């Protein structure tokens, strides 16, 4: 295994990214960073984790962005809970900072939050993208979040839209473009357990 190996895992909702990431981290004895990123970013911005949690990897609606920018703020009624919300850019900056610090410390598996882009120039970084067809993902979402099929399908669709928008806004690259990554796997086709083996195979071959 490469010294100070970082594996960034970008994933579509329901493609098994968190499960696969945890297992890869466990098998390789690497630090696993997922919710930790938001928690630390929230701390940096002095806001409560819950307040930014629902905004994770999403962009704010247009009008809220307007409200936030100082020049327009006085012309709008500003609900209390939004008044203190950090802007998307502030959140992205804080998350970037957290991810860089994690990567400086040494080996880790980092889930989402544009890790693939933030660490693009870092040596010994394996950038993975996990995807699957909408049907496979909706079925996993139904099971994981106890949703009915229709809601799960909507959640998958909305998440795809939001993440694509968020990622292009902050990185300038298309989310699903293979060339952003070193390895992309259709986890629906390969299965989650075997996808873990696929990633481990890359790590073992990469000398």
């Amino acid at each position, binding site marked *: 295994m490469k010294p100070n190996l970082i594996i960034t895992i970008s994933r579509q909702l329901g493609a098994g990214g968190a499960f696969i990431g945890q297992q890869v981290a466990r098998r390789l004895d690497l630090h696993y960073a997922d919710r930790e990123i938001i928690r630390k970013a929230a701390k940096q911005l002095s806001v409560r984790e819950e307040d930014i949690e629902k905004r994770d990897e999403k962009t704010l609606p247009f009008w809220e962005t307007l409200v936030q920018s100082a020049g327009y703020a006085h012309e709008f009624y500003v609900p209390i809970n939004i008044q203190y919300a950090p802007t998307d850019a502030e959140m992205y900056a804080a998350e970037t900072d957290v991810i860089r610090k994690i990567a400086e410390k040494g080996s880790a598996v980092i889930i989402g939050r544009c890790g693939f882009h933030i660490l693009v120039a870092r040596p010994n970084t*394996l950038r993975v993208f996990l*995807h699957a067809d909408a049907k496979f993902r909706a079925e996993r979402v139904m099971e994981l979040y106890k949703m009915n099929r229709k809601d799960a399908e909507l959640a998958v669709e909305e998440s795809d839209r939001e993440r694509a928008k968020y990622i292009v806004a902050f990185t300038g690259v298309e989310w699903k*473009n*293979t*060339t952003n*990554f070193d390895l992309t796997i259709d986890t629906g086709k390969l299965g989650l357990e*075997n996808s873990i*083996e*696929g990633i481990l195979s890359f790590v073992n071959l990469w000398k």
Partner: protein
Amino acid sequence: MNTPLIITISRQLGSGGEYIGQQLTERLKIQYIDRRLISEVAKELSVPEEEVAAREEQIQSLWKAFTQSCSFNSNRDIPAFLKYPPTDYQLFIAESDIIKKIAKEGSAVIIGRCGFHVLEARPDLVRIFLYADREIRAKRVAADYSVNLKEASKMIVESDRKRGHYIEAFTKKIWTDAAVYDLSINTGKLGLEKTIDLILNYLKELELNKIKKENKQ
């Protein structure tokens, strides 16, 4: 491998896709489809082989395609020179037919020619995309085609543009979209030999997953 295995390899120029495809066919003992495909297409369309190779994966200028489609649609007397070469669309259809025919015959590795799209309905299909950073590809292209690095870089930019357009025009899919492939690998990171090993490991895992699924049922 007991069941037929069709592997399509889509690749960027200079990423080593052809070499990897050839090595895979040797290691898996299955047939490699590349030149053969072109020559069969050429026969079907009765144009000289070199001409098809030169036109491969390129979209003709809109004007030319327009003139030709007009002349093919009307069954009147058309000057002979207008009939050939075939339009890109005719070539695409002919190639698709050939790919489907070959895939029916048994296991194969098929390089390029929108194989990932043409065969997408096959359940045993494995769609692979191979790519690498521009600098690495330029070095390989410079060596393979005996050109300098600057020319190689130009060839790469031009090839990416043409392949991207061609594939989008005929498949309505984006060439570099991870979601249209089962596996994609940056060959620059692992090197060609290790990429072959990774693909072979992937195929083993795929087989294991299939057995697992069958046992569940």
